[in-house]
């Protein structure tokens, strides 16, 4: 098992390096010099600024060959220097720190919601194959993967907020009630539901497909022949085995979740990383955009790793 994890880590390393390489290319291609991105602009004013700038230039080595620059830049990353926002003149890390909570809240809620809907739906659809329920589930998931998420968001706001007035149209809190649990829930409801729609579509299809495959397996017949009650067969044998590939699917869908979060945050004015990036785009604030992009890529690699390890824990055949 340990050997498996180590092997898996070893595979992740070149991918991370590749990501960092691509990011570094962006650093050089984006308008504004690489130095500008990394330096705290507050240090740039004052009498010694020119000398300071020169020494930084030397330290960060624009005159050094590119590979060395890359290493230096990665060194900066490890020290926690993700750059400084052009517009707000504060370290990007602090901006990210402020906003990440909201994004995590939104995406995790959406993910859990999606799973809570997709797994039962997919399982029942597979058990009642070719029934009305099955066709309805398949139809629903088809619809969910075809509709643009921002359109779904707009319609949700239109119906539930503007016409019915049940829920607020955006933001994370109402003025004056900041921090109240029920208020946050009310604000979270629509964006989380719409975002979960991004995931429900693919999840239902995968769960249903996986379940159908497993139900056709010989060991299901063996379990029935042993006299196991139907529920036991469905849960302990069919479902448990059908969910194993789902861990991989979950990991594969993470980039889609992140992209969807960006769109949803924009539509619902949800103050998370997505909205931060969107504003940064309008303001040409590249350090922020780059930092968030790197962060998401790193997260994706991390989740893929976790998913593979979890799958190996659940399925002993993978460990070989």
């Amino acid at each position: 098992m340990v050997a498996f994890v180590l092997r898996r880590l070893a595979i992740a390393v070149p991918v991370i390096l590749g990501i960092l390489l691509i990011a570094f290319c962006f650093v050089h291609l984006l308008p504004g010099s690489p130095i500008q991105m990394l330096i705290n602009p507050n240090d740039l004013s004052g009498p010694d600024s020119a000398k300071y700038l020169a020494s930084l230039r030397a330290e960060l080595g624009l005159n050094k060959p590119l590979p060395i620059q890359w290493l230096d830049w990665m060194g900066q990353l490890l020290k926690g220097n993700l750059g400084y926002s052009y517009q707000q003149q504060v370290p990007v890390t602090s901006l990210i720190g402020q906003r990440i909570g909201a994004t995590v809240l939104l995406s995790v809620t959406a993910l859990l919601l999606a799973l809570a809907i997709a797994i039962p739906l997919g399982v029942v659809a597979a058990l009642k194959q070719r029934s009305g329920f099955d066709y309805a589930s398949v139809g629903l998931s088809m619809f969910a993967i075809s509709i643009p998420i921002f359109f779904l968001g707009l319609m949700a706001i239109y119906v539930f907020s503007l016409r019915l007035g049940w829920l607020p149209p955006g933001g994370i809190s109402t003025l004056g009630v900041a921090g109240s649990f029920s208020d946050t829930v009310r604000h979270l409801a629509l964006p989380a539901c719409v975002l979960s729609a991004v995931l429900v579509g693919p999840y239902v299809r995968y769960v249903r497909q996986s379940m159908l495959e497993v139900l056709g397996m010989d060991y299901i017949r063996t379990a029935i022949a042993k006299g196991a009650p139907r529920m036991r067969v469905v849960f302990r044998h069919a479902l448990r085995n059908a969910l194993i590939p789902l861990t991989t699917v979950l990991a594969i869908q993470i980039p889609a979740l992140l992209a969807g979060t960006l769109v949803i945050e924009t539509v619902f004015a949800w103050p998370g990383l997505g909205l931060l990036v969107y504003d940064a785009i309008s303001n040409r604030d590249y350090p922020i955009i780059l930092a968030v992009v790197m962060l998401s890529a790193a997260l994706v690699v991390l989740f893929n790793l976790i998913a593979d390890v979890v799958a190996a824990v659940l399925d002993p055949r993978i460990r070989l």
Partner: protein
Amino acid sequence: MSTSPLLPENIAATDAAATVSAAESRSAWQESPFRISMARFLRHRLAVAGLLILVALAVIAIFAPLISPYNPNATNLFLYQHPPSAAHLLGTDQEGRDVLSRLIYGARVSLTVGIAAAVSAGIVGLVLGLLAGFLGGWVDSIVMRLTEMVLSFPALVVIILIVAIIGPSLTTIIIVIALTQWPTGCRIVRQSTRSLKEMDFILTARAIGCSDFRIMLRHTLPSVLPPLTVALTVLSAEAILLEAALSFLGLGVNVPESSWGGMMQAAQSLTTLSSQPWLWLPPGIAIAVAVLAINFVGDGLRDAIDTRQQT
């Protein structure tokens, strides 16, 4: 008596046999895998419906100048945000342009980007997937790591980043979308190639002396095309949705005829959202219908070729 086919007395017999087998080959074509798949596809009602919708959309896009009631870019401030009426079936937007006409012309951009990006991504994916699957070894490792890297970046964000650097032109957007989508096609092709590689007919080709390149081209490629076609539908759907999101965020194509996504930009304001639904509902529905149709076709294709592979 010798049975060599070259002896005169045997040539007549060979001729007769050849005529019989020609007739047989003609009827064999009736049963060719392609025909069987086509028949299966046509039995899929939803898939056929999807195909018809796509054809209709293509016709609308191609004949836009003939169908569209007005010039989509003709502004007329006197017609500022009129609701649907007899003269303007879908109303007008903030600059007095007819929504229906913009919707019709919007099909051009959305569909062009979608298909062009998907085809580009498909070609790149095909080449890399074939090489990786067939040659294995370090070529495979490199391609796999490359796909993982590209897939780690959320497509939308990367596209935004690149478009921010280079600027949003139609070609740029198509290329960038293709850059983020090729791994999907590549994976499918690679998977297919790897399983085909072990099949006996490939080994036979090798045994009779075919070069690797020839095997890839003549023997592997045709068998890889069906799953790739299915992948193309997924890619097109994804490309259309990406382009729409991009345009909605204001980062997409800037040509005068905006795409469907671009038409929905106005809805970012709550007032527009609330009081002018004719501005954003039609394009949203159009996108959903187009993507749904593509997905139905994709499903139909998947079923059509799947069963064939089981025989």
